[in-house]
């Protein structure tokens, strides 16, 4: 018995000896992001190795704000992400509900098409989407352009369909017998029961919108209409630029999400484990 627990101890030590350096390597870029964001530019470009935070975050932030209206861009990003998340959760759970609870003509085809789009590269729709939104609808540099086209989300629908089909149908049949309308059953019985799944989906969708880069880069390229990642991206690669400022921006984009991640880890992981976003 003692040799068994000794073997377990050895295995445990080996496990930690392997995993700890790997974890430190994985944390290193995030740590350096924070360190860089607090260092003056002449500190970033000095020959010494600096691994601890300094106190120049505010100076860096001011440099960033001078180069681009980053606070304004953050405002756009937050508003767009909140609106997008609300609408997308609503749309995907309505569709998921229909697929989970009703028999209807064409159901198999709808599911097959949704599944088919999971492995279809986004590149295929990118150009027509751009032509349509920018030229035909004249909506470039608006919030609508940022919010509406990404509302189609195939994995979200499959996630909500799964959530609703796991609920016992007796729950809904009782209400039906009493003559409650279907949309009321959906809103007041099904949605409250699906709260944990809705939370998981909402977090993943918010994150996807918050970090979205390519589409906002193409469609909202005017300075006053840029999202925060796009505004930050315009600075990367400029010759005369404050790297401390860029890092301050990166921290402002990342740290709030890390806090949300720590607080809501369970929902986060549930959302990703279900493949709720591509």
């Amino acid at each position, binding site marked *: 018995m003692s040799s068994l627990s000794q073997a377990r101890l050895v295995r445990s030590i080996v496990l930690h000896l392997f995993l700890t350096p790997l974890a430190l390597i994985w944390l290193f870029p995030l740590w350096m992001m924070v360190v860089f964001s607090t260092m003056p530019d002449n500190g970033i470009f000095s020959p010494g190795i600096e691994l601890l935070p300094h106190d120049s975050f505010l100076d860096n932030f001011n440099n960033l704000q001078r180069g681009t209206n980053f606070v304004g861009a953050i405002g756009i990003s937050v508003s767009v992400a909140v609106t997008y998340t609300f609408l997308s959760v609503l749309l995907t759970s309505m569709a998921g509900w229909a697929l989970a609870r009703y028999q209807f003509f064409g159901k198999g085809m709808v599911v097959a098409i949704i599944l088919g789009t999971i492995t279809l590269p986004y590149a295929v729709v990118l150009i027509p989407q751009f032509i349509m939104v920018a030229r035909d609808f004249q909506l470039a540099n608006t919030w609508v352009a940022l919010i509406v086209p990404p509302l189609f989300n195939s994995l979200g629908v499959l996630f909500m369909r799964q959530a609703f089909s796991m609920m016992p149908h007796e729950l809904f049949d009782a209400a039906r017998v009493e003559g409650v309308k279907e949309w009321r059953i959906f809103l007041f019985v099904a949605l409250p029961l699906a709260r944990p799944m809705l939370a998981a989906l909402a977090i993943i969708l918010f994150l996807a919108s918050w970090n979205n880069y390519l589409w906002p880069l193409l469609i909202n390229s005017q300075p006053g209409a840029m999202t925060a*990642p796009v505004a930050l991206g315009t600075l990367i690669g400029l010759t005369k630029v404050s790297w401390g400022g860029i890092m301050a921006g990166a921290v402002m984009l990342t740290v709030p999400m890390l806090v949300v991640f720590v607080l809501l880890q369970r929902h986060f992981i549930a959302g990703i484990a279900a493949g709720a976003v591509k």
Partner: protein
Amino acid sequence: MRTQNATAYRFLAPYLLIFSVFWVWPIISSFLISFQATRTVPWRFAPTFNWGRLIGDPAFFNALKNTLLILVIQVPVMISLAIVMAVLLNSPLLKARGLYRFAFFAPVVVGEVAYSAVFRLMFNLDFGIINKLLNSVGVPKIDWFSNVTPAMAVIMIAVTWRWAGYNAIILLAGLQSIPDDVYEAATLDRVSKVKQFFYITLPLLKPVIVFCAVLSIIGTMQLFTEPFLITERGGPGGGTETLGLLLYRQGFRSLNFGYASAIAYTMAGLAIAITLVQLWLTRDPK
């Protein structure tokens, strides 16, 4: 459940509307655009104009080669690493599990722009922390972004850092759905942990691994932000240019929508081929 066409489609309507306008029509439209010469006004039908150019364009084959090279190296490395992370995080011997999970899963929330900026700075020739650390252990500094091979390596390292934990989360969920008694029986039969991994864990996890691999391949195939921001528009000299970046340059810098659509459909063709391989790999062996 009785048939309720009207009710069902009322719930589906807004979703299907968005789907039709922003996906179904674009899928058809970009196919049609790929057969048109789009730099004349008005566009004219010229079936071989873009596709003919594509098969003779060295820039296309360069981007295709780079993309496939990244795929072939980065995806297997990342998936293997993700499997290792998931299996070790799942070990009952692990202490302070929350800290390790945070370390590996945190990159999942980091945006492409933010981490591209950090990696670009970390791998800077003279002032990057990586070269400084290498120097301090006696390794001469590497000019990461002026040579193709190290520049590709940085791209692959960055993508692996960003996505390994994401895949580990999915794989961990897969691991946790394997019933414990399978392992208990194997342990009673004195099957070693290593053998258990190869003969129980991997086969039972295969569908999840294939799922992760396919999503990763399709994601990496469209790689855009990393070569755009980290290696400065696919540098050095197109050495890290990917299909995604070529599509961006052709479509949105040169405004050559026809040619860009042909590139997009090439990517779709690759994706369909990969999906078919996936279906074949996970088919019922009957």
